């Protein structure tokens, strides 16, 4: 009996969706718009996070050593820095490597290369490039480097300079900007998602308002609340399902177009690839949201007219 009822409810929901062609079409359009906004916000907030992390990733602390510092002393210090819990990665750049890198960077600048050759010695110091697990932890890394722990066995310092102190202001400001951007993004996303949900709910409510007399008649012939509500919820699920498919399809060319624009200022993230790689997750989020939105909106909208 329950299976028969479910079958009848589903069939009736499909038929209602099909026969109320214009109302269904209009509802699907509005739900598509809402889901598109929803998808764009989620996609770009995730992408924004990726960009922010990339920027954060570019922040590091460079320690330059005196040119007479022995490689062994530098490597001992490297080990003790690596053992710090705040540190994610330490890269050692030897004096020779610094020279090679410099020459490679200035291969087009003959004068500079000539001047360097005339100097006859390697003027570059060895360096350690330190990446912390979080940008806020660079301060404590810098403190460690300035403390007694960074001294050699005989108590002398081999550190010539730490660029953190020079860049501290910029790093702090960058951290503040990124955090504010993140908070702003979450606030705007939440508000727009709320508006999208409200618009979808009202559209479905209006489509059900048109059927309020029909609901009353169904109740008067002795139909239960579940039996009256069921087909409307099925139609709501169909609005959500079809809308989510349309949204996912039209989002692809949008991402493709935006990808060509964003490549101009950041080639690190390819929007189209990002969309394709994460399509499974995006598909589940959008389809799930569409179905939930349609079903819950219909359920709540019908409830009002069941009091007959």
């Amino acid at each position, binding site marked *: *009996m329950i299976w*028969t009822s479910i079958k*009848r409810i589903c069939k009736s929901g499909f*038929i*209602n969706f099909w*026969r*109320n062609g214009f109302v269904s079409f209009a509802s699907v359009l509005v739900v598509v718009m809402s889901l598109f906004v929803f998808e764009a916000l989620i996609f770009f907030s995730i992408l924004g996070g990726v960009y922010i992390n990339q920027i954060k990733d570019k922040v590091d602390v460079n320690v330059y050593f005196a040119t007479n510092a022995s490689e062994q002393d530098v490597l001992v210090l490297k080990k003790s820095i690596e053992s710090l819990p705040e540190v994610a990665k330490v890269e050692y750049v030897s004096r020779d490597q610094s020279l090679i890198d410099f020459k490679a960077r200035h291969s087009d600048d003959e004068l500079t290369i000539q001047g360097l050759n005339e100097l006859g010695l390697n003027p570059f110091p060895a360096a350690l490039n330190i990446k912390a697990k979080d940008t806020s932890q660079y301060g404590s890394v810098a403190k460690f480097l300035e403390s007694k722990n960074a001294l050699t066995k005989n108590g002398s310092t081999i550190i010539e300079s730490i660029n953190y102190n020079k860049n501290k202001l910029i790093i702090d400001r960058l951290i503040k900007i990124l955090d504010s951007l993140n908070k702003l993004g979450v606030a705007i996303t939440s508000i727009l998602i709320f508006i999208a949900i409200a618009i979808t709910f009202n559209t479905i409510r209006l489509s059900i308002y048109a059927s309020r*007399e*029909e609901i*009353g*008649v*169904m*109740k*008067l*012939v*002795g*139909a*239960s*609340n579940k*039996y009256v509500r069921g087909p409307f919820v099925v139609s709501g699920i169909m609005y959500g399902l079809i809308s989510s498919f349309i949204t996912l399809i039209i989002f692809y060319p949008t991402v493709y177009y935006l990808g060509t624009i964003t490549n101009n200022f950041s080639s690190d993230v390819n929007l189209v690839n990002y969309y394709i790689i994460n399509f499974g997750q995006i598909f589940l989020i959008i389809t799930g949201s569409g179905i939930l939105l349609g079903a819950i909106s219909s359920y709540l909208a019908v409830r009002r007219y069941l009091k*007959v």
Partner: protein
Amino acid sequence: MIYFDKVSKIYNDDSIALKDVSFTVEPKEFVSIVGHSGAGKTTLLKLLLAEEYPTEGNIFFESKNVHNLGRNDVMKLRRRIGAVFQDFKLIPNKTAYENIAFAMEAAGKTEEEIESDVPHVLELVDLGKKIWSFPHELSGGEKQRVAIARAIVNQPDVIIADEPTGNLDPMNTYEIIKILCKINELGTTVILTTHNKGVVDSVGKRVLTIDAGSITRDDKEGKYVL
């Protein structure tokens, strides 16, 4: 079978729809309720269907107080009362077949029962050829016959017809009343509200006259006096 016991109904805007109304309807009876527009006829039927609640008094259907019933029992009560309305109240996006089938589905009937009973009941109201027509493809008389078919398909104990001929021409009015009389002859109680004297005279059975919310006359001879 049906007993209205000192029933009063006052709406929220303080308008008095019914005032201390008491009457009984016996099984297999045909009762016409007559009165001017706004006299309280429709309110009486709404109270019986538990669509409205009385301000005072009680309504009994087979000794059960209609307004003490739970939601499930109200559902069951409505399946035992077939309702026909002046504005037909058909579901617009369902065919004649589907409108009638819906009432059977709501009552938990099987597909086999629906497939055999719906065409049969449509034949009874002479609409065998309009089985797949939508309400907007039917005339007023045809719509009302579909509504009657829907009301009788679950073989209810009572049919209530609220001004069923109000929107119909004399020919269709005659046809509808003939069908209602036939249903009554087969043993179903019929309660009809109308202000059409011709209808009441052609039925020739008990007439309750209602005026400004009160029963003013209960005539077993079927006389229409307003």
